């Protein structure tokens, strides 16, 4: 095994491979930071350009892109509340309030270090898991995937402390929106009102750009001033203190990385679930859950660690089964096929050195991008001092054009605008946007897996109690639902939290 790992490192440590890795990292940082673009767009644009490269160099370039996108996404999520890609939306929840308090440097420093450490932990986990990957992925069938989606929603709803009812309402509203479009199990078009654009459902990335970036711009426009409330503090906040915070909260980093690794290994679940699940579980585990959403540094560390760890483990279903872990991986599969590598079990045998080279490229890029992020954190944090009257039209214009660029569909612009107004209403009336995002991501998959489970069990719901992983997931749900009452009971009895 060791000689394969070293073979991957050796292949990567060539001048040409390092050059393309660095180039990929810069492209990934840039694409990650622009709302609506992200890793999938970058890879889609680069794939045809790699035709003339050998497969190892092409994988170094792709690894560079994929490893750096999360850091780029964190920069725009923290500074502008505009997630560069969907998983970074979780970073907005506490990263942007920190920027508003003039602590953008702290948040960016913590995000960069959590990114790097998460990536390394993810790599170590993948190197350990890869030999047994096949057995792990096969444990998850439709019943497990359905329960996993329900578990995700419960985790997030119970994390909305003090506003559980509104959290649940936002969640079920998100589910209703996720039902719009063509249902792939029944073949029925639902709730489209005759609008062809809605046949594919409400597109996720334009909706997220609206809910976060545009809603924040409306809010800023009404409030006036700049993002950072106190200009004096922006220059003082140290980036290195963000780095230290990450080490201080090592449990959060470890938990986030492990969540990212596990979720990333499950096909079709994706980074958004990993980052939000990590965030929610950190809120659950915290002694001070009320501080989340108001600028708690752990709210930045948890999703960032999960996102980068997920990037590595996403390779498991993609390479081992040819089942992409997300959109980015689907595009990446195209690049593999272009270079004569057919994803599937045989790939784990025929292209082992390339696979390990890719894993190292991804890790190297994520660590290098984090260093670069740390270097530019301080100058970038000055962006939060720009007056809203200048910032609002500029960011709104880039956000709406970016949402069009996702799949060159002008309908995306209208979706972004509608979700922008909806997001502002949710901010004003104190409805958590977190549960809505998770419902939008999981809704269609939850319904599909529910139908598949019903079909495979002839409508017998006891199937959920006959499978080991299902029982573990059900126990997790029960524990999460009981935990708040237990905490309340301890509070009532005057016991420590």
């Amino acid at each position: 095994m060791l000689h394969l790992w070293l073979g991957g490192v050796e292949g990567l440590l060539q001048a040409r491979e390092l050059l393309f890795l660095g180039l990929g990292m810069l492209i990934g940082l840039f694409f990650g930071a622009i709302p609506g673009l992200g890793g999938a767009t970058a890879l889609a644009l680069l794939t045809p350009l790699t035709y003339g490269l050998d497969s190892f160099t092409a994988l170094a370039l792709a690894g560079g892109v994929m490893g750096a996108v999360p850091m780029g996404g964190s920069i725009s999520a923290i500074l502008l509340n505009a997630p560069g890609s969907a998983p970074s939306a979780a970073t907005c929840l506490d990263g942007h309030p920190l920027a508003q308090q003039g602590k953008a440097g702290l948040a960016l420093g913590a995000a960069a270090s959590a990114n790097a450490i998460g990536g390394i932990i993810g790599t170590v986990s993948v190197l350990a898991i890869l030999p047994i990957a096949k057995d792990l992925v096969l444990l998850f069938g439709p019943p497990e995937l359905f329960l996993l989606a329900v578990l995700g929603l419960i985790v997030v709803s119970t994390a909305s402390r003090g506003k559980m009812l509104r959290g649940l309402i936002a969640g079920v509203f998100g589910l209703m929106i996720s039902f719009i479009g063509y249902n792939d199990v029944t073949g029925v078009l639902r709730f489209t009102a005759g609008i062809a654009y809605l046949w594919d459902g409400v597109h996720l990335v334009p909706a997220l750009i609206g809910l976060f970036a545009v809603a924040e711009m409306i809010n800023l426009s009404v409030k006036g001033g700049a993002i950072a409330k106190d200009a004096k503090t922006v220059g003082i906040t140290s980036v290195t203190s963000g780095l230290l915070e990450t080490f201080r909260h090592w449990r959060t980093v470890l938990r986030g990385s492990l969540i990212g690794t596990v979720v990333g290994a499950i096909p079709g679940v994706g980074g958004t679930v990993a980052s939000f699940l990590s965030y929610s579980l950190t809120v659950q585990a915290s002694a001070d859950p009320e501080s989340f959403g108001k600028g708690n540094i752990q709210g930045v560390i948890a999703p960032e660690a999960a996102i980068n760890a997920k990037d590595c483990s996403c390779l498991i279903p993609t390479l081992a089964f040819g089942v992409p872990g997300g959109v980015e991986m689907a595009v990446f599969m195209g690049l593999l096929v272009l270079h004569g590598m057919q994803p599937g079990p045989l790939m784990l045998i025929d292209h082992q050195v390339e696979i390990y080279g890719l894993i190292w490229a991804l890790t190297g890029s994520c660590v290098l991008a984090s260093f670069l992020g740390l270097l530019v954190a301080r100058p970038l944090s000055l962006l939060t001092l720009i007056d809203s009257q200048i910032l609002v039209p500029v960011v709104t214009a880039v956000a709406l054009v970016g949402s069009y660029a996702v799949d060159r569909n002008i309908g995306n612009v209208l979706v972004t605008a509608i979700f922008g107004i909806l997001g502002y209403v949710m901010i004003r009336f104190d409805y958590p946007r977190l549960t809505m995002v998770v419902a939008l991501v999981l809704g269609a998959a939850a319904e599909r897996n529910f139908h598949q489970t019903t079909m495979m069990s002839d409508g017998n719901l006891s199937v959920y109690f006959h499978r080991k992983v299902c029982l573990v997931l059900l126990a997790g749900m029960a524990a999460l639902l009981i935990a708040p009452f237990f905490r309340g009971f301890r509070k009532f009895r005057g016991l420590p939290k």
Partner: protein
Amino acid sequence: MKYLPAASLAVFTAIFLAMAYGYPSQARAFPVAVAWVTLVLVTLDIVSRTETKAGAAVLSRLNPGTAAPDPRPLGGQFGAAAWLAVFALTLVLIGILYTVPLYVFASLRFRGSRSWSTCLWIAALVTGGIWLLFAIVLRLELYPGYFFESR
């Protein structure tokens, strides 16, 4: 005003439910279940906003941490939403390359009260940046607008 979000969602859910019952049983099973749950939750939300004993009980158990919105002039909020709506619609009608400079310029001039020269150079910079990134680097065709689209 405090009932507006919950009441709007109740209306939306009722329409959603009415549409759902028009689909075959398997296709509507999950959406109908979710919609009924929504109606129950929205009813609880409405009750929690009433100044009654039941309202106080629901609020204290399920929504204790929610805060009333800070007072803001309605005109300013509608104005901000209207600027966004007009921008989005104009993008659809006359395309990206005409709308972006117009919107940035108008927004800076009429909402930001900036000087003509500042508005002009920022509008030119933003449009140039968008054109360079999307049209040149990414080779994306910038949407020409409904009126200018070749049919």
